């Protein structure tokens, strides 16, 4: 049993953190292999690495959630053992987790108050908490309704709650595991302001992201992990994306793709004045009309929480439209079940990948056949054919380079990015007529992102009609033939993809009409 950390040592703020020779073994995976890492006060360290490189695992050990198999953690040169987050929080370390750590049926302020001493113990002082929290929101201008329940919030808003939670606890050392994955460019900029401010206040910040331009923009130093080993420490001086990419992936990565001119065919998916309500019964999508032709990618840009999720779910048949029509291949499918849409050749890559996209307790094979398990060759007369299933899965796993020990590894043991690759592999493998892709590369490393983008373009050239929902403007602009911008549930403009500038789109996402801009 490891020694406890003495809060006594915490009294003076953290000046330096060192992780030395950290090794962590998971069933079938060496997640960390003698990793070294160091941060000093006032410094922002970026931690880079492909999916499954071991970033989150490393951080979870620092945060006391996992115990390292070997290696030492030094704070201000003093070795310490964290047996639980309690010690860690005491020590002045805070963490924003890659997967949200929020209690969905509590209010925002209750989530913030959770685990804190109250000023009127034993009773809750939610109002005081609310006040303090709003102050933080104002200083760092984050928009949040403290009385809203978490389940009512969009992913972006939930991310904000996570940030507020951490700031509220005022940690010296902040661990940020892909905090920007779900933020819009504007939000990212604001967020970076916060980080810089904190750095000036002599905080230590560890920042994990897959977006190289962010890393270059914010970090002082970069540490790169590959397959659980630290393969590089670089000062952030005249570093280039290409360099970083190369170090992460271990090979040169192309970041710009040439796109053949679209060869659009007839309309595959037609959305007519669709209205959709959100979980708590308010109209979230207010009369959206779109047309997507085969062989084209229509990008849907917008700040998260403006109705993208509801629209996507409506298209997938998981949510019913209160008004309007959805037409697939000139057949009305407004009320069709998900099954009928799948049969009609539609694929859907959901935003909530861990909740909707996969079954975490199923293994990779079982997840791979999720939609098609009842079709030849996977099964015949209700009997599953495992050799066929294994063969198909193996091929897909290889194609999409999903990192996994075996095909019968439970998906819950895959890293975030690998899960996404698996879903993509499954959906594209069905080679759909229509593809609804919601945030397909969120939290996915560039190696994979590059691959995913290529596959999307390949589908396009094979005549798939794709609706690409994304907040990553680079992605949208790189892939879309046309870009529709959604704001408060309405399409406020459709612009030509290749020519659209980030500024223009950014403004439209903020609700400024095209005309007004001129």
């Amino acid at each position: 049993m490891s020694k406890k950390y003495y809060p006594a040592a915490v009294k003076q703020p953290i000046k330096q953190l060192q992780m030395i020779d950290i090794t962590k073994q998971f069933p079938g995976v060496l997640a960390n292999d003698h990793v070294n890492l160091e941060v000093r006060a006032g410094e922002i360290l970026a931690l880079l690495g492909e999916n499954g490189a071991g970033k989150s695992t490393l951080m979870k050990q620092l945060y006391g959630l996992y115990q390292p198999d070997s290696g030492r953690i030094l704070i201000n040169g003093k070795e310490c053992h964290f047996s639980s987050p309690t010690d860690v929080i005491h020590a002045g370390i805070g963490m924003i987790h890659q997967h949200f750590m929020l209690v969905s049926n509590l209010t925002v302020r209750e989530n913030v108050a959770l685990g804190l001493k109250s000023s009127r113990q034993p009773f809750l002082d939610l109002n005081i908490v609310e006040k303090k929290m709003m102050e933080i929101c104002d200083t760092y201008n984050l928009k949040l309704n403290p009385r809203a329940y978490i389940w009512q919030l969009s992913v972006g808003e939930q991310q904000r709650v996570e940030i507020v939670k951490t700031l509220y606890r005022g940690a010296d050392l902040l661990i940020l595991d892909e905090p920007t994955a779900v933020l819009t460019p504007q939000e990212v900029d604001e967020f970076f302001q916060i980080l810089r401010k904190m750095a000036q206040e002599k905080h230590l910040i560890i920042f994990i992201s897959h977006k190289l331009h962010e890393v270059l923009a914010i970090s002082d130093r970069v540490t790169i992990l590959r397959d659980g080993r630290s393969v590089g420490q670089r000062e952030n001086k005249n570093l280039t994306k290409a360099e970083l990419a190369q170090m992460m992936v271990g090979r040169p990565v192309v970041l710009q793709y040439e796109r053949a001119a679209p060869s659009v065919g007839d309309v595959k998916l037609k959305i007519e004045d669709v209205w959709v309500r959100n979980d708590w019964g308010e109209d979230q999508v207010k009369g959206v009309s779109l047309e997507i032709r085969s062989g084209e990618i229509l990008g849907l840009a917008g700040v998260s929480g403006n109705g993208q999720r509801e629209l996507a779910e409506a298209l997938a048949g998981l949510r019913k439209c209160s008004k309007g029509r959805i037409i697939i291949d000139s057949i009305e499918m407004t009320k069709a079940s998900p099954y009928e849409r799948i049969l009609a050749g539609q694929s859907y890559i959901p935003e909530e990948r861990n909740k909707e996209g996969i079954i975490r307790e199923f293994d990779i094979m079982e997840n791979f056949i999720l939609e098609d398990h009842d079709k030849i060759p996977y099964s015949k007369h209700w009997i599953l054919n495992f050799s066929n299933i294994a063969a198909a899965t193996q091929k897909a796993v290889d194609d999409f380079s999903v990192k996994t020990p075996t095909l019968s590894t439970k998906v819950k043991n895959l890293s975030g990015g690998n899960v996404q690759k698996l879903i993509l592999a499954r959906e594209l493998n069905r080679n759909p007529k229509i593809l609804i892709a919601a945030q397909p590369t969120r939290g996915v490393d560039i190696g994979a992102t590059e691959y995913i983008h290529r596959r999307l373009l390949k589908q396009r050239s094979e005549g798939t009609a794709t609706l690409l929902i994304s907040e990553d403007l680079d992605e949208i602009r790189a892939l879309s033939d046309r870009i529709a911008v959604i704001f408060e549930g309405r399409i406020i403009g459709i612009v030509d993809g290749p020519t659209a500038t980030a500024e223009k789109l950014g403004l439209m996402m903020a609700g400024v009409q095209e005309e007004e801009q001129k």
Partner: protein
Amino acid sequence: MNNLFSAATIFGIIGMAIRLAMPYLYAGLGELFNQTAGCFNLGVEGIMMMGAFSAFYVVYQTGNLFLGIAAAAVIGLFMGLIMSLISVTFKAAQGISGIGLTMFGVGLSSLLFKTLLQGTVQSVAGFAPLKIPVLGDIPFIGETFFQNNLMVYLAYCLIPVCSVVLYKTTLGLKIRSVGQNPQAADTLGVSVIKIRYLCVCIGGVLAGIAGATFSIANINMFQEKMTNGTGYIAVALVYFSGWKPKGVLFGALLFSFVNALQLRMQVLGINIPSDVAMMLPYILTIITLVFVQGRDAPAALSVPYERSEN
């Protein structure tokens, strides 16, 4: 033949419902704590029987009712500890350990009854009705609501207490979050294990007291298996309640009311086969459930907490 709708009869039924609801309230609120923290304790019946016996035995020996209640509480706590050890520390399947605990508790209580009391039914002086001064004198209302024994009043006072604890205190917030998303609670330094131990033990204590009400606050004698499935109903009522103290109150009263009603109907010779009459409370509970909506179960209910897959 008296009719069912004379004031006396109606108030009689209500009064009886209020008394019959008492054990369901104690046990139900106890289980509510269990479940809000994400623990499913199906062992209530067993804990109740142990509580019933220990309370009776202590009162039988000492004649001190409060010692009796204390004994029941302590035994309940002990049973709660066993349950939490098995389902929290050993991460055992909770439904099943509950069934085991029931077999154990029911069996052991009978065994003790046979060895310590030679299995002969004896009676003790239990909690006597306690008339609330002024209020108790109001015709009908008085005897219906304000002439019950202390344990009955306590049971009803427990409802607001639980609401406050669960929804107005930091502890309550921790409990609710541990039942909903233990990972999140854990990352904020809330000890999932401690909270769950606490709640299962609270549940045990209340279940023990619920048992005691049978042997020293209602019938005032001990008989094997005298709780007769009350524990299981109590667990069911928690689901019925939508995990809110108010809900437990409503469910317990409804169930008891129908029971009182069907007995009264039998006495008044309103002709329905007794067995059919006995079904009514159960059928009605199910039907009500179909219409009562908007329940939110603790997401982590009966899922043992593990910090990571390793």
